[in-house]
Each structure stands twice: as structure tokens, then as C-alpha cells.
């Protein structure tokens, strides 16, 4: 389908990558409008982080904006910071990657002037009409186009904690007494970000990290992925069968002197297909029982950060607690959190200065903090996917309405499509999605 004018809602990594892929088209009549409320393009939730230890968790050599030009980011980095990085197996600060995305967007716009327009505005509503899409902005003006793509990425509202829990780095994350105890909900990469902010901000007080299983991400090693063909992968089998196959392959690899990371990375190209080959029951079981373990092996930390975290756990500044978060209430000078330690029925009350919500990135879009998402859900133009971890989309990323009809003019790109693709959180996957979407739209 040809769309001469395309509006992209969201100027974070997904939106910028899509714009850059669209503008590779030779069509002089193509018009791309990129709308971002924050005013910093390429610096969405992921790449606006300020601390130098808020790092990209993928080595530089995997972070090119373009899958067909895998050294693009590395060349940019090497020319910007000559001599600083010994090899492309380096984990740069995320703000550096944000600057890269900004330059990718600038180059894309400059390649054929007049085709790219960027707007700093909040989108309030999106309507699909028979002859096009209409976007309503917070300033009251309206834009129309042939196609729209939602690239709104990650949710910024804390999912838990009745408005008392705080997202690390948000405007409500005000300075704390450096000796005060704090609690972090969740133990994945977002927790590491919060820990980096606290530790880097000279926080000395105890940090209690509460998660269902008390696991923390593993560290990277520079090892090559094992070579796996689609014909090797047991698609469509039960989770028990797949995990047994996976464990066997890890054991074989280690027995031959290899590393489990090589297996996790070797399987990566097939993660979307594996997810899609499962019936709903298997997907639910995966999310419930396997995902915590999968995540700590799949989403790893730069080795030095991992060492730092392990050190903070060893010296007691960070305490890992396997427990379920029950509730939170306001208290003089802080909050009182209630948790239920794993394997017990008893409740434990913990008084802390602040609770950070660093829970998973999966979201119930019905409770989104983003007005356009809420409007789309409320009007029936969008619905959560079957797992309620994102937005329901078709195989080619078209929005699916509450009645099951597939949109002709609205698509979704990036992490919000995780219900269908699952492995769609990081640049190496999002850039592929953007490439195929750009091909379909131009």
C-alpha cells in the first residue's frame, strides 16, 4: 500500500528509526511528519538517561540504525570519540546513543530536503477516516495524512503503587536524604538504572530490591553466538520440551568449552518465530514461569556494571528480596510498603523514604499514561493483545480494533507490539521491523 504522507507519533528510538528507514525511499513526494512531545528526538525513555553509567546494554557493534549497514553506529562513534574505544564490543552511555539517533534523523532529513517535518507537540487523539488519518494535537491544531504509525514506545507511568511509587529519573524523583532506606520494585535492567542513579548520586542508605524471584541480570561476555538454523529449532512444542532442548544445547555448548550466552544469542533470530509458534496457553506459561529466568540471561549488563552490582549486593548496600509487592501507603517523611516474602503467607512491612517502580516494561494499555493510547482504546480503535502486554497488531503491524478489524491506515512499531512479536524491545529487532514497515509504506 502506498502512503505518500505519513505521520509518526513518537520521536524516541522507534520513531526515529522508522523515519530514517522511510526517508531512504527515492520517492520525492514522500512526506514524513515526526511528532514528539519532549522536544528531543531519538531520546525517548531509553536514550535520554543522563548518568554516564546508564548504558546501552548491547555492544556498539549491534546498535547500527540499519541492519544492512551493521557498522553505521560504530563508524559514527569512532569518528566522534576517536581512540576512546578499543573495539566495537563497547557499551556506550545511552545519552551518546541518543545523540547518534538524533544525527541519524538529521542525515535522513537532509538527504532530500523538505520531506521530513518534525513537530514538538503532544498528540491527543488519532482518528482513521476513509480517506486518511487525522491527528489532533494538544495545541488544538489538526494534521492529516495518508498513514499514521504509533511509535510511542515505553510507558512512563508507574504501574503499581497508587501514585506513591516513583519512576526513577522522572520529575517526581526529587533529591533524597543520602542515608535514607529506599525500595526498588523489580530487579531487571530498569532496577539497575535506578541503582546507578542512587549509587552515582552518592546514596549511602540501604536499597531493598523486591522482585518475585530475587534474580538480577547476568553480565555480558564477548563470545560469538552459536550457529543455529531454523531447522534446528523445535518450534510449536510445549514449554517443557523447548526448555529441555535449550538446556541440552547449553550443556553441549559448555561441554565443548563454550558459553551459555552463545546459545541465548544464537537463538535470538528465532525468538519471534518461537513466540508465534506457541498456542496462547504456552505463551502465558512462558510469561508466568520462564520469563524471569529468560530475562536475566537474555537482557544482560555490561561486565563492569554487573561487577559493580554484584559488589553492592555482597557489601550489603543492595539487598535482594524475593517477595510479592502487596501495597503501599503514605507515611510521615516517606512511605510504608507491604510485601509478602516468597514461600510464606506472612506480610512484612517496610518503611522507606521512597519506593521506585522498576517493574516490567509490559503494560496494560488501558491504563496508559499516554493520551492518544487511551483515546484509541476508549474509542474502540485499539485493544490490548491477548496477553495484555501491549497493543494488538496484525503480522504486518497494523492496529487491530476492539471488534477485531484490521486498520488500513494505522500501524504500530516498537515495544508496544510485543504481544505479537515478543522479542521487540531492542534496537537490533526494532530496526528490522522498521525496515519492513518502511518497505510496506513506501
Amino acid at each position: 500500500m502506498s502512503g505518500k504522507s505519513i505521520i509518526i507519533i513518537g520521536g524516541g528510538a522507534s520513531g526515529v528509526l522508522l523515519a530514517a528507514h522511510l526517508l531512504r525511499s527515492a520517492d520525492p513526494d514522500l512526506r514524513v511528519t515526526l511528532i514528539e512531545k519532549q522536544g528531543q528526538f531519538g531520546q525517548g525513555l531509553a536514550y535520554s538517561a543522563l548518568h554516564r553509567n546508564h548504558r546501552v546494554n548491547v555492544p556498539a557493534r549491534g546498535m547500527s540504525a540499519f541492519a544492512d549497514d551493521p557498522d553505521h553506529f560504530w563508524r559514527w562513534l569512532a569518528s566522534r570519540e576517536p581512540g576512546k574505544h578499543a573495539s566495537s564490543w563497547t557499551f556506550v552511555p545511552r545519552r551518546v546513543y541518543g545523540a547518534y539517533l538524533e544525527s541519524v534523523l538529521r542525515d535522513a532529513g537532509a538527504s532530500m530536503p523538505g520531506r521530513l517535518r518534525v513537530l514538538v507537540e503532544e498528540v491527543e487523539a488519532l482518528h482513521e477516516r476513509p480517506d486518511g488519518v487525522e491527528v489532533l494535537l494538544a495545541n488544538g491544531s489538526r494534521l492529516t495524512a495518508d498513514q499514521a504509525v504509533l511509535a510511542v514506545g515505553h510507558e512512563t507511568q508507574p504501574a503499581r503503587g497508587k501514585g506513591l511509587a516513583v519512576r526513577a529519573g522522572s520529575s517526581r524523583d526529587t533529591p533524597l536524604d543520602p542515608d535514607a532506606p529506599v525500595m526498588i520494585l523489580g530487579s531487571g535492567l530498569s532496577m539497575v538504572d535506578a541503582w546507578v542513579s542512587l549509587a552515582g548520586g552518592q546514596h549511602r542508605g540501604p536499597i531493598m530490591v523486591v522482585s518475585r524471584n530475587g534474580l538480577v541480570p547476568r553480565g555480558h561476555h564477548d563470545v560469538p553466538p552459536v550457529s543455529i538454523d531454523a531447522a534446528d529449532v523445535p518450534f510449536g512444542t510445549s514449554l517443557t520440551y523447548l526448555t529441555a532442548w535449550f538446556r541440552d544445547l547449553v550443556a553441549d555448548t559448555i561441554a565443548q568449552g563454550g558459553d551459555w550466552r552463545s546459545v541465548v544469542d544464537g537463538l535470538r533470530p528465532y525468538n519471534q518465530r518461537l513466540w508465534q509458534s506457541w498456542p496462547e496457553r504456552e505463551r502465558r506459561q512462558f510469561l508466568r514461569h520462564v520469563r524471569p529466568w529468560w530475562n536475566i540471561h537474555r537482557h544482560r549488563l555490561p561486565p563492569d556494571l554487573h561487577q559493580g552490582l554484584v559488589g553492592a549486593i555482597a557489601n550489603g548496600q543492595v539487598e535482594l528480596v524475593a517477595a510479592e509487592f502487596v501495597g503501599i501507603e503514605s507515611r510521615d517523611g516517606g512511605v510504608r510498603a507491604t510485601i509478602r516474602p516468597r514461600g510464606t503467607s506472612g506480610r512484612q512491612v517496610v518503611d522507606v523514604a521512597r519506593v521506585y517502580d522498576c517493574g516490567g516494561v509490559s503494560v496494560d494499555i488501558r491504563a496508559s499514561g499516554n493520551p492518544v493510547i487511551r483515546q484509541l482504546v476508549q474509542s474502540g480503535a485499539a485493544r490490548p493483545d491477548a496477553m495484555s502486554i501491549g497493543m494488538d497488531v496484525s503480522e504486518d503491524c497494523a492496529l487491530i480494533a476492539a471488534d477485531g478489524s484490521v486498520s488500513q491506515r494505522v500501524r504500530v512499531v516498537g515495544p508496544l507490539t510485543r504481544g505479537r512479536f515478543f522479542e521487540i524491545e531492542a534496537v537490533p529487532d526494532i530496526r528490522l521491523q522498521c525496515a519492513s514497515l518502511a518497505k510496506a509504506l513506501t
Partner: protein
Amino acid sequence: MLTKKGKYGLKALAALSHQPHGTLMGVAELAQANAIPKKFLDAILADLRNAGFVRSKKGKLGGYGLARPPAEIMIGHVVRVLDGPLAPIPCASRTRYVPCDDCDVATCQVRHLMLDVRNAVAEVLDKTSLSQMAALGGADMLEQKLPI
């Protein structure tokens, strides 16, 4: 490359796919109707159950049925479970590689070709569902192919 095990398993699944949804078929009946040795079929069905393709119930009214709709069961997925990673010769696999004593992995042209062959085979089998396969052949097809 498709062993007897793979072939029997696919025949059994095709037979189960013709059963009304929710009904179970006894192993003896399934074995007899498809000319499969019963003991062998027992082992095959156990593998298929372990992999989540069939479900079973013990007892007098017990037996086997499909665990998922036949349109969702892909033939390639079943064959991998029964026969391994679709390798036409033992060395043509990445994860279940068995070396030949006469050649070198990296340079053997036969192996390289056979890796391509198996990827092409996987491509076909992964796009074919059990319901599609079960609709092939049978008495109707015989008449079409051999017009009298």
C-alpha cells in the same frame, strides 16, 4: 530422511485430526487402522504428548486426541520432535551435528549442500499444517489421479 517413526507419527496425527473435537481414540484402534505396530505407536505418542501435540487419558474410556486444533499443528514442528533437526545426513545439523569420518566440516561440499536442502525442507514442512496434510491423499485423490 523421514524415518518410520516420523511417518507413523504423522499418520497417527492425521487419523486423530479426523476425529470429532474432544473425542479420544484408543491406541490399539489407531495402530490397527494405520498398520502401525502398537508398541512403536505407544512410544511415538508418548513423544508427541511430551512435546504438546497430543493429550491422553488413561483408563477404559481413555486414549489419545489432538492437544491443539490441526490447523495450528505444523508438520515441520512434529517431524523435528520425532526425527530430530531435519538433517538429510547426520552431519547436516548445527545443534545435533554428528561428524563423518571421511571429511572436514568446514570444507565438505556435500554437507553445505545438505544444509541448504534441510532448510528448504523445513521451509515447506513449517508452512504445512496438519489439517492441510490430512486433506491430501485418501480415496478422493486416488480417483482424481487415476481417472477410469
